[in-house]
Every structure is written in C-alpha cells, then in structure tokens.
C-alpha cells in the first residue's frame, strides 16, 4: 500500500514545484481513486440503480393522474413531509413532481453518507492509522493529502450526479430537471464531504469524526423536515438546511437553479475552515482532544452481562432511536391512509393490507417492517461475539477463568434482551403514532402486544446466528442471508407473488399480523422452542470447537 504513494511521489518531485503546500495532490488523488475504485463504483451503481428502479416502480403503481393525485393528498401530513420534501406540484402531481418529492430526500441523504464516509476515510482515518505520516514524509505538500481526499469525494459525487441524470432521463423524465437533480445530489454530497473534512480536524478518531459529520446530517434532516412542516413549501427554518437547498430547486415543477449556489458557497466556506483548522494543529492531534475516561471499571462492568451490555449498548441505542422515530412516523400516517386506499386499490396488491380493517392491517404491516430492523440488530449483536473471538478478546476473557459457555450464554442473553426491547418499542411507538393520528387510545396497547408477538421470530433469527457462531464460526455471516430473505419476503412477497414455501421460511411471515389477524399461539410456541434449542446448540458448539484467536 505504501509502495504506490512512493512511486507516485517520485513523479511529483520531478514535475511540480516543491515549495507549494499542494505539491503532490494529483498523484495522491490518483492513489486514493485507485484504492476506492470498487467502493465508489458500488456506491454509484447502488444509488443510481435504486433511483432508477424506484422511478420505474412509481410509474407502475401510480399509472395515471388520478392515482397520483390520490397519493398527493397523502403527502400533506406532517410525517409524510418529514420523509419526503417541500410540497411542490401537489395540485398537479406529475410523475416528475412525485419523483422529486418522494425520492429526493433518500437520495440526498444516501449521497451525503457516502461523502462523509469517503472523506473521513482519507483524512482522519489515514492519520489515525499512521499512514498519513508515511505520506507526509514524502515530498508532498501540507494540504495535499486533504485536498486529494476531497477531490476523490468530488469525483465520486460527480459520478453519482452524472449517472443519476442518465438514469432519470432514461426513465423518460424531463431532461433539464434531471440534470438539476443530478447536480443537486452531487453538490449536496460535496457539502457533507466538506462537513466531514471539518469534523476530521476536530477529533483524533475517525469514528468520532464520522459520527459528528453524521450528526450534522441528522440535524440538517430534522431542520429541513420541521421547517417544511411549518410551511409545506419551505419556511425560514428550512433554509438553514443544505438538504432544503437541493429540494428547493423545485425539480420537474418550476425549476430554479440558484439554491444550488448556496450549496457551492457553503462547500467553499467549509473547505476554507478545514484548511485553517489544519494550520493550527499537529499531525495526528485533534483540536478537541479526547477527554480521559474512568481509570477504574464500574462494578457493573465486571460481569459478563455488564461487559456485553456496555459493548452492545451504542448500537442498540441507535436502533432504538431509529425504530422509535419510524414507528411514530409510520403510525401517524394511519389516519391519512383511509382516503388513499379508497382512491388507489393497487396499493392493496403491493402490500398485504386487508382493506376491510384498514387501520389495524396498516399498523401490523408497518410493524412488520420495523421488526426487520430488530432482526438485523439481533444478528449483528450475536455476530459481535464471533468478532470478539476473532480479535482474541474472547480468549483473553476465557483465560481469565470465565467458562466459554458462561461467556456465550451471558452474551446471548444480553443480545436477546436488547433486541427484545427494540422489538417491543417498535410496537409501542407505532401504536402511539396511531393513537396520536386517530385519537383512539386502544392502538397503543394493541400494537405493543403485536410487538411482543414478534419476539419469538426475532429471537429465532438471533438463535440461528448463534448456532452458526457455535458450530460453523467461519460461516456465521450466512445468518445475514436469513435477514435478507425476511426483508425480501416482507417487502416484495406480495408484489412478486413469491411461492409460499419461500415465504414460510421467514420467521416474520410465520408471526400472525396483529392486531388485524387473530393471535395463534402455535407458531409462536414452535419458534420460541426452536430458538431455545438452537441457543442450547450454540452453547454446546462453542464448548467443543477451537477458539478462533
């Protein structure tokens, strides 16, 4: 890895002035692109293909003006605005207006996340790992690595913008707005890449830099959403968010370019800030140093469960917040639903909603989406045990006199507890959202019960992962196949008419869709028992096999 920059830097010495702080930028840029070419290609393809597929899907589900207009009625509720965009063109909801309103937010957030990850990867992460020291020791200017990093981010964004434009035009949407859409994505990505360049100066650790930049993105998301709720085509508050600038171009409705100038200006300002911050600090240091932590472990950290809880709590908290926010949002969509379904029977084909008991059915379906989050969390939490094993930390703990079964049992218990909380909170918040929207208190209780009913399914998923960790640790990643299957069956099962046997493999599918369906104990008991058997098998397996490191 270090061999390449050496060779590149040699060419630099020959070709450019050594006194410039930017010397070596171009060769480094090439190195970064070489290192990232697969990563960038995957991002670009994933983003633009998703975009293309969604546009095509919208075209199929809402084939005519009437159906789109029915959809538009739904888009004025606060939760819809939060997850979409400023309500332009609702009175004449063309496919373009629909695409701009309903897809742009997801795309802008995704491209921003891409930019943040790429920017931190080549700035703070390089510094933290010490690779930057190797680069800076070469005849490379002070600002060259950071500039090269941002050029890579810009390259990725340019590609996203270009491919997105092509994809949009390819679906038959109007060209000028499509170009604007692509540009808006690229520029918004660039803004958040520049945000990450600033946060990378502030902290010593890549994770913290990424976290801070993502937090800024989160705030931008909320500010835009709340601003647009205040005034549904954008209030004064909206304009404080870079996401709003991209959406305020009124794509496919009444195109205007100037808001994008704000994005460009902010990028320049942020880069200037990053450079001036870089001036004031040493390599490897942050402007804000990490505060010292406790010198002694608190008593609760000293048990297997306490330690596991500490290691998993960050991720669990993230899932909890996510599930709760989406639960409330989805739940509160319940009231606006009635009108939409009446005007738009196709939706019934798309997801398994029973039109006679609309609200019940809707709540159950929304919850089944949230449960997929809990299932992903339980698999992640269980697989962390394998990561502990691979890193040799399990060996360290075990050599301290804790038996493997005790370690594994404690870990699985905590993972189960954490994900159970996430599952039940998913039910609870969906119910609260529905209660808020409809004014009927019963939903809160009913959806909480529905959440509880998903526990066997979630725990079974975790137990499958655990059994793999116990018996086939090298293949434990296969547990994600089950998660993907569940997502696929839940999202597309109805629309694609998947065969029953495939759908039956999903534990979520095996759970009755409360509160609309009757509760049936048999599948829940069977799944619970199966989970217990697999967990016991996991304990047996881990006792018999070699530790990984």
């Amino acid at each position: 890895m270090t061999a390449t920059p050496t060779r590149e830097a040699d060419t630099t010495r020959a070709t450019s002035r050594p006194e410039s702080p930017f010397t070596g930028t171009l060769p480094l840029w090439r190195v970064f692109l070489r290192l990232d070419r697969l990563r960038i290609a995957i991002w670009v393809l994933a983003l633009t293909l998703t975009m293309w597929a969604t546009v095509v899907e919208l075209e199929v589900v809402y084939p005519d003006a009437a159906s789109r207009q029915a959809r538009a009625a739904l888009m004025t509720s606060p939760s819809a605005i939060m997850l979409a965009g400023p309500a332009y063109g609702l009175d004449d909801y063309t496919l373009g207006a629909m695409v701009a309103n309903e897809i742009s937010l997801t795309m802008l957030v995704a491209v921003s996340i891409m930019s943040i990850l790429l920017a931190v990867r080549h700035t703070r992460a390089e510094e933290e790992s010490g690779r930057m020291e190797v680069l800076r020791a070469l005849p490379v200017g002070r600002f060259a690595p950071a500039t090269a990093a941002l050029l890579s981010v810009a390259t990725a964004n340019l590609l996203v913008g270009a491919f997105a434009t092509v994809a949009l035009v390819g679906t038959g949407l109007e060209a000028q707005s499509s170009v604007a859409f692509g540009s808006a994505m690229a520029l918004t990505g660039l803004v958040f890449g520049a945000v990450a360049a600033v946060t990378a100066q502030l902290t010593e650790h890549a994770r913290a830099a990424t976290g801070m930049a993502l937090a800024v993105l989160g705030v931008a998301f909320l500010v835009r959403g709340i601003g647009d709720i205040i005034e549904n085509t954008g209030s004064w508050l909206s304009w404080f968010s870079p996401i709003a600038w991209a959406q305020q171009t009124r794509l496919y409705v009444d195109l205007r370019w100037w808001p994008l100038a704000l994005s460009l200006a902010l990028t320049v300002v942020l880069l200037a800030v990053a450079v001036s911050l870089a001036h004031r600090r040493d390599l490897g240091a942050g402007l804000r140093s990490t505060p010292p932590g406790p010198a002694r472990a608190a008593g609760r950290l000293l048990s297997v469960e306490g330690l596991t809880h500490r290691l998993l709590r960050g991720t669990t908290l993230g899932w909890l917040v996510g599930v709760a926010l989406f639960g409330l949002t989805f739940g509160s969509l319940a009231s606006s639903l009635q009108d939409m379904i009446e005007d738009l029977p196709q939706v019934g084909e798309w997801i398994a909603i029973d039109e006679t008991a609309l609200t019940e059915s809707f709540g159950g379906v929304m919850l089944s989406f949230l449960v997929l989050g809990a299932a992903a969390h339980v698999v992640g939490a269980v697989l962390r045990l394998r990561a502990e094993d691979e890193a040799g930390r399990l060996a360290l703990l075990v050599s301290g006199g804790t038996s493997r079964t005790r370690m594994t049992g404690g870990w699985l218990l905590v993972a189960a507890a954490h994900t159970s909380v996430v599952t039940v909170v998913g039910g609870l918040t969906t119910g609260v959202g529905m209660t808020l929207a409809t004014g009927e208190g019963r939903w809160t209780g009913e959806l909480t019960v529905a959440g509880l009913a998903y526990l066997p399914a979630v725990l079974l998923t975790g137990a499958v992962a655990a059994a793999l960790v116990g018996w086939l640790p090298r293949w434990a990643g296969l547990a994600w196949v089950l998660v993907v299957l569940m997502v696929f069956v839940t999202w597309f099962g109805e629309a694609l008419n998947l065969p029953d046997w495939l759908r039956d493999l999903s534990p979520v599918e095996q759970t009755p869709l409360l509160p609309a369906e009757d509760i049936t104990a048999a599948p829940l008991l069977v799944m619970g028992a199966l989970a217990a058997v697999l967990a016991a098998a996991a304990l047996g397996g881990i006792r018999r096999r070699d530790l990984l490191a």
Partner: protein
Amino acid sequence: MTSDLAIEARDLVKTFGTTRALDGFDLSVRTGTVAGFLGPNGAGKSTTIRVLLGMLRADSGTARVLGMDPWVDAVAVHRRVAYVPGDTNLWPSLTGGEIIDVLTRLRGGERHEARRAELLEKFELDPTKRARSYSKGNRQKVALVAALASDVELYLFDEPTSGLDPLMEAVFTQEVRRLREEGRTVLLSSHILAEVEKLCDTVTIIRAGRDVESGTLAELRHLTRSTVTATTRSDHTALLRLPGVHDLVREDGYLSFDVDNTALNDVLPVLAQLGVENLTIAPPSLEELFMRHYGDELSGVSS
C-alpha cells in the same frame, strides 16, 4: 512423578487444514522455573500456548497443565493461570483501567489494589485513555499489568515484549525475576534470544511444530562450540591435528577457531604450549544455537 511439572505436553499434534502447526511436540516445564520457548514466527509457539490454555483442542497427544487437562478442566486451569497474548486486541471504547479491571475481576479472585497501582506506575501506563488511542506497546502493557497483577501459579507470556521499548522491557525482566523468586512458574515464548538468555532457566526450541532441542541453558551450550581467539608466539599447526577443532583461521597475527566444548579440555594445554599472549573464549550465544537449527548459512560455514 509428574507433580513437579507445571506443564507437561507429550506428542502434541494440531493441524489447521493441511498445515501441521504442531507435529509431535513435547514440552516439560518444572514448577518454579522460568522456561523459554524459542522459535521463529510460524513455528507453532502460539499454537502450543493456546493448546495449553484449552483454546484449541490438540488432534492427538496429551497436555497437562498444573496436573489437569486444559481442554476438559479449562476453567479450573484458568483460575490458576495468567496469559498475555502476542497481539493484544482490546475493546476500543473502554479505557485501559477499565480493561484491566474487567480482565482481573472476571478471574473471580480479589483485585490487588497495591499491585495494580504499582504496575501501572512502573509501566508508565495512563489508565484513563481509551484503548482506541493506545499504541501496540501500550496495548501490550494493559495485558501485562492485568496478568502480572493476578496472583496465580503459572504465567504464560506469548512474545510479551514485542512492541515494548527497552526501558519497559527492563521492567518486564524485573517482574519475571520477581515471579521466579516467589516460586511461580513462567513460560515465555520469544524470538528474541537475549531475552530468553537473560531470564530463563530452561529453553525449548521449536521449529516447524517440533521440539528440536530442550534443556537448561548449560546443557544446550554443551551441544555446541565455543569460539576461541588468541595470539600465539609459536606456529599453530599442532592445533589442526586435534579432534574437535574447526574452522581455524589465521589473520593479522590473530588465530581464531571453533572448538567443541567437550574437546576444550584437550585443546587448552596445546594452546598453552604455543605461548599465548592474548586469549578470549566466548560461550555460544543463543543466536548461534538458533542458527544451528534454522540457518543453513551457519551450518554450511562450520562444517
């Protein structure tokens, strides 16, 4: 018969896929001694230690640690053993102090406050830093403090000083000597010869999964040669006829040759008759022992 052996491994075989990491390996460590375990990277040192800890199950052969089978009685063994892995991976979000407490308390014994504080000071380790920001050396120190603060019978160190600077190495040396004075048993794997020479009573040399040589340092020296350098007044040809003398070279008036230690007693009188003006006899360094088993270069030169 085995009661004075803290570690006894017989004919251990462990394969990973097609690689035979251990291939009929024997190891004995007497209670109360410091045993060195020497070999190049990939020779099977870590595999052996992990079999002795019951992390890996040997395909065949027997291992007894403190009189118990480490695979079957893992927990009982672990309560009386402390271990420092070669490459210490810690939880990035926990501080060094927290990790030390986690590792020593999970042991189930009492924490040794004074010992912990003393070791933190000696190793100059800041316990309030998160493990994420520790260098390799500092991560190693966390594992060392946790192990050394534990009051156990047997200490297993897997290349413990890799990543430590010389000052910290000296602290480690001191601590191992202290363990020996207290009658604890230590197994120390290393590829640093000086370290083993400095600390160990016995040495086992492992190569490609087999023990190729084993014994006290004195016994192993017995198997090799000493290097003699001298200036003499008379002609040296008499030496050439003696059995056990090898590679005699005369250069710039200096005479130098290797001699089998068993032949030393016969060589010295002959040397004395030549009229010695100046003489050094150097014992073989572990470097040389090592080269005999792993280096084709040295065996080519000396034979």
